[in-house]
């Protein structure tokens, strides 16, 4: 009998489809995967250790660098945790601005997830169109807070500055064009038979296994578990908007991908409602009365929000001084990866790329 031998392939830290410096040691039998061993830590900057020698406001720029594709949501999570500890009341106007800005950040993150996924499967044009929408969003972010990706805009007690005048026409134009752009992605990527052949029935993730392994976000909802923190445990003013939580049926790559497309449409709805309600609000402050140097009382708090990649939690311990005693970040991409080995077994190399793309990880968040 022909003696075949297993050979290991290094889908190494430097690989076009690993969305960053993530390494997967594949033990291959021909093209089928026998074992996939993830190796992490190439982008570990020790943000949790850095935060311990910074003041509470100085930690905000570091939270931008966790999931640098949806930085607003990182800011929101950390800032709401600290506010819970201090017990400060955020003004109405700032709450609405926070919702608009974080939903915009969620759409920008899902645009990249969709684009990068189409690129991983070979459709280069499918990569370009979502990035065009993301450029529009980044220009609006630049108007609001001066930088395109790392905003540090949401502050303890409100937001850094009110929305500028030229923001409103830009967001209205974006809200008008966006649904037709998502239809374009549907037509080009979702409807495409080759794309469906590459994603339907691949990397099946049963619902109870997803719950047992604490997966979250579109990965969990793709398997049919209806759990979105904005609905399950509303934080901020999310209970004032009506939107649905898209849920997949059989937990394969296609459902995870399609959940993100539907979530983009829902975020679009939220922004529209939030903008209408914001414009009815009278002019008001965007920042509560908060001392320049924050000294939260001794104690700890754990606060979770629905990040773009999943549940983003911040556990902040304060010992009464100016610097936080311990900041722990519950990172969705990190925890969504713990099933990668089982999900990839038995599939081909091309499917590993599809499965990894459907989980949508960002290495800044995985390695923290």
């Amino acid at each position, binding site marked *: 009998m022909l003696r075949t031998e297993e050979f290991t*392939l290094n889908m190494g830290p430097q690989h*076009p*489809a690993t969305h960053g410096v993530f390494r997967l040691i594949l033990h291959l039998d021909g093209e089928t995967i026998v074992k996939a061993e993830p190796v992490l830590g190439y982008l570990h900057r020790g943000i949790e250790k850095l935060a311990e020698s910074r003041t509470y406001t100085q930690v905000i720029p570091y939270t931008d660098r966790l999931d640098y594709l949806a930085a607003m949501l990182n800011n929101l999570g950390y800032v709401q945790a600290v506010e819970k500890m201090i017990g400060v009341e955020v003004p109405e106007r700032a709450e609405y601005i926070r919702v608009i800005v974080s939903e915009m950040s969620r759409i920008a993150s899902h645009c990249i997830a969709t684009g990068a996924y189409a690129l991983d499967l070979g459709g280069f044009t499918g990569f370009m169109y979502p990035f065009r929408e993301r450029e529009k969003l980044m220009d609006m972010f630049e108007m609001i807070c001066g930088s395109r990706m790392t905003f540090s805009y949401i502050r303890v007690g409100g937001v850094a500055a009110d929305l500028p005048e030229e923001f409103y026409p830009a967001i209205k134009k974006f809200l008008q064009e966006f649904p037709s752009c998502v239809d374009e992605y549907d037509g080009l990527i979702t409807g495409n038979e*080759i794309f469906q052949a*590459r994603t339907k029935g691949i990397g099946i993730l049963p619902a109870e296994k997803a719950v047992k392994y604490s997966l979250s976000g579109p990965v969990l909802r793709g398997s049919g578990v209806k759990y979105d923190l904005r609905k399950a445990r509303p934080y901020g003013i999310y209970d004032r908007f009506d939107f649905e939580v898209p849920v997949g049926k059989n937990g394969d790559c296609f459902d995870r991908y399609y959940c993100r497309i539907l979530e983009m449409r829902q975020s679009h709805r939220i922004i529209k409602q939030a903008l209408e309600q914001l414009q009815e609000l009278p002019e008001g402050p965007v920042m509560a009365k908060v001392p320049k140097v924050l000294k939260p009382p001794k104690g700890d708090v754990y606060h979770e929000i629905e990040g773009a990649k999943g549940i983003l939690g911040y556990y902040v311990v304060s010992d009464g001084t100016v610097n936080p005693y311990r900041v722990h970040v519950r990172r969705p991409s990190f925890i969504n990866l713990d099933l990668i080995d089982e999900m990839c077994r038995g599939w*081909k190399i091309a499917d590993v790329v599809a499965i990894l793309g459907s989980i949508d990880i960002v290495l800044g968040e995985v390695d923290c």
Partner: protein
Amino acid sequence: MENLFVNTAGSIRNIMENSGLSPLLSDAVLVMFKLLAILVFVLINALWLVYMERKIAGYIQCRYGPNRVGPKGLLQTTADIGKLISKEIIIPRGADKILFLLSPALIFAPPLMVFMVVPFGENMAAVELNIGVFYFLAVASLSTVIFWMAGWASNNKYSLLGGMRVVAQMISYELPMVLAILGVVMITGTLNMSEIIRAQENTWFIFTQPVAFLIYFIAGVAECNRAPFDLAEGESEIVAGPFTEYSGMGFAMFFLAEYANMVLVSFMAATLFLGGWLAPFGLTFIPGWIWMLLKVYVLIFLFMWLRWTYPRIRVDQLMGFGWKVLVPLSLANIFVTGVAIKVLDMIGW
């Protein structure tokens, strides 16, 4: 204008004959000229197509594509080739040196060899071979060996995977291509390209053999490793397949050979199915060879359009599609053509 090239060839022959060369020698020199012309045509075409592809890709993706180097970006490919020539050719340790250096040199051979037979216009084929189509199929499948040589010689796991994928893909798409062409040959009864074109006087074979054209086109896309079948160098899976380890001129040769292959398959499709130099609806004031070029470029645009729209197929889906769909379809096509020819004979057409 119609037979511009035929007259020039004739006048060159007279000059040589008058200057006292023996007919045999003048023939040899004339064939040299023809081959030189074809070589220049293929290389210029390869350069131009790289620029055309990047422009079309740009315009499809709502951006401009190269427009900085030279007027409207026309010198972009020459700049690329210049850059690639100046790059150092790195031979990985443990690589099989001879094969590693031989494969980029050989990659251009099969397409060039076949271009000798391709009729650019009315009796403008360099060599009027009466088994033209058969020669094309035989030589075109040589490039599989060269890709595999590159994949095996560069001693890199990704190249090995890429090489094996290329072998699997090109061999399994050779069969439907042959069977599709068989449909055409059954109608014309000859393998000579010019005869096939002349047989399409009144109806092009694309109308009498639509299924064969479709199968041939899909198999052609797979032969040149173009999307959606570009598994050989699937960037996001196996980095760059057989030519991961190549840098500098080696990589440029592979890159340009892909375009030469594409031009070749489009020429063959134009000859077999779109009536070569025959003008559609009798517009003969445009010379034949320009019609030939027009048809080739329409097909090449179709290749590029496919590439910038579709994602990539997985390996086993590719094989499944090739063997389970294309081969039975082409066999059915042969059967139907056979029956149709018999029936038409009987009612005495």
